[in-house]
């Protein structure tokens, strides 16, 4: 009897111990640290209650900038990355020669690391010899030239274009998979009833892609909230903190300025935002799978 109840725990033990050590206990300790002022070195921590949180909201202009940038990033991802992904999927979901080649080309950047993409695109944006400015020169559009990553006005958008290049393939592949589960019959029925193509799209394709939309929107929201590698690799949050996002500002506060409490508070903002996205998502998907 005891061995039978004990056995599952034995199988579970390695995963459980590592999970507790690496994720669970540290995140609780981070939460605890977010109520203190501490530089990470001195033995004593000063308790400040919610001070770190209120400081971030009331006094830290870069934090506000970071929040705004995460929001802009999210809006850009939900419209442009998801939109282009859907358009590409619709175009590729046909009898086409070279479909797999096209799909491969559009999806490939997604499997690259953000740092590789960032390094490559930094060169593409190089003010004197990069592709963008050289191409503008060639087209006679010298006045459009910018030091794309060095000007606060353009930097975030320039990084986002690189992220767009990298990210379109993911929703595209998900939408393609979703489109392939849609049967032929409703389209035939609609055609016989005299539906126009845009009507079929609007009343058949979109509703039947609902599941896929839930997945794409959830993954997009999470990815936009966590965005880090590509921004760190291209601008490091600069120029003049104009491209800081929550993740990079958390990194700076914690590991550059040694404001452990502030950094911990930022990371708890991240936890809260991801809970707002993930809890309804998990609830929705588990409810579906039990039916």
């Amino acid at each position: 009897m005891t061995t039978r109840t004990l056995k599952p725990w034995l199988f579970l033990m390695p995963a459980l111990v590592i999970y507790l050590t690496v994720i669970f206990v540290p995140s609780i300790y981070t939460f605890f640290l977010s109520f203190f002022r501490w530089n990470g070195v001195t033995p004593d921590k000063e308790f400040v209650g919610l001070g770190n949180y209120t400081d971030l909201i009331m006094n830290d202009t870069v934090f506000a900038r970071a929040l705004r940038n995460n929001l802009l990033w999210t809006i850009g991802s939900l419209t442009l990355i998801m939109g282009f992904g859907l358009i590409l999927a619709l175009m590729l979901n046909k009898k086409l020669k070279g479909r797999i080649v096209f799909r491969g080309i559009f999806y490939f950047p997604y499997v690259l690391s953000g740092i590789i993409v960032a390094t490559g695109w930094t060169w593409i944006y190089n003010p004197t010899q990069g592709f963008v400015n050289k191409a503008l020169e060639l087209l006679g559009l010298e006045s459009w030239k910018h030091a794309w990553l060095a000007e606060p006005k353009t930097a975030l958008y320039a990084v986002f274009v690189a992220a767009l290049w990298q990210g379109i393939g993911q929703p595209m592949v998900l939408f393609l998979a979703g489109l392939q589960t849609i049967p032929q019959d409703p389209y035939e029925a609609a055609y016989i009833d005299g539906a126009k193509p845009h009507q079929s799209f609007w009343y058949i394709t979109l509703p039947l892609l609902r599941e896929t939309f839930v997945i794409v929107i959830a993954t997009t929201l999470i990815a936009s909230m966590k965005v880090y590698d590509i921004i760190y690799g291209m601008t490091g949050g600069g120029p003049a903190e104009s491209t800081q996002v929550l993740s990079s500002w958390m990194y700076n506060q914690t590991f550059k300025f040694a404001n452990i409490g502030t950094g911990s508070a930022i990371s708890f903002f991240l936890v809260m935002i991801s809970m707002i996205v993930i809890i309804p998502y998990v609830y929705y998907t588990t409810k579906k799978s039990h039916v």
Partner: protein
Amino acid sequence: MEELRVHPGIQALRYTVLILLAAIFLIPVLFIAFTALKSKSDLLTSPFYALPQKFQWGNFAEAWNQGKMSMYMSNTAFICLVKVPLGIMIEALAAFALTRLNFKWSNSMFAFFLVGMMIPIQATLVPLNIFLNKTHLVNTYPGIFLVYVGFGIPFGILILRGFFRTIPKEIDESALIDGCGDMGKFYRIVLPLAMPAIATLVIFDFMATWNEFLLAQIFITKDSMRTITTGLLSFKGEHATDYTLMNAGVLISIIPTLVVYLLFQKYFVSGLAGSVKG
């Protein structure tokens, strides 16, 4: 969905748009490759769209050897080769306990692991750093494997549990009759039957580990242990104005991913769709 009728004009338009878009997607890579293959003077004098006057394969050798790209790459390969099988073994054992051992706490433990998916890595970094420093595991492989395996656990369990559940329970009973213990059931029945899911997870885990940046940035500070991501950044820092060399480095780090991608493209696409549906 197949189309009911396609006007040849529409089909031609479709190809034109797709080819144009594909070209836009490929231009950045081509520009990087052209730069990487030029000599420094060639880069300065010839137009940006021109092919290299003479292909400078030496740039690659220089990035590979003096630029230490070979070291960064073999470090990353080593981490992947240990982390991926180790992590999946640990996740599979847990998923086995959650699905096939009549475990009373099965659902609540699964939910507990899922909580981990909500916690961004940032929320663990400071305590982990303190812990690894206290245990002298910073810049050691045991420390790296611990952290890397840890962050793979929630997703791995989610995928494997989902797949293990689809394996019929009757097989377990016949195994019991044949005298298989639980360990035997795990090794001889569940693992082999779960190979499709495991193969997908291997590819995904491999790519995630290969591309990992934040953990490497914090926990691997010794240059001789750096992975490809942090290595590429320090390479970029050291050769900031040596554009041909820097792009050779970028191209070198793209190649392994490209090879894995071309070999296993099927898994990437089907796995992504499957993991999401599961």
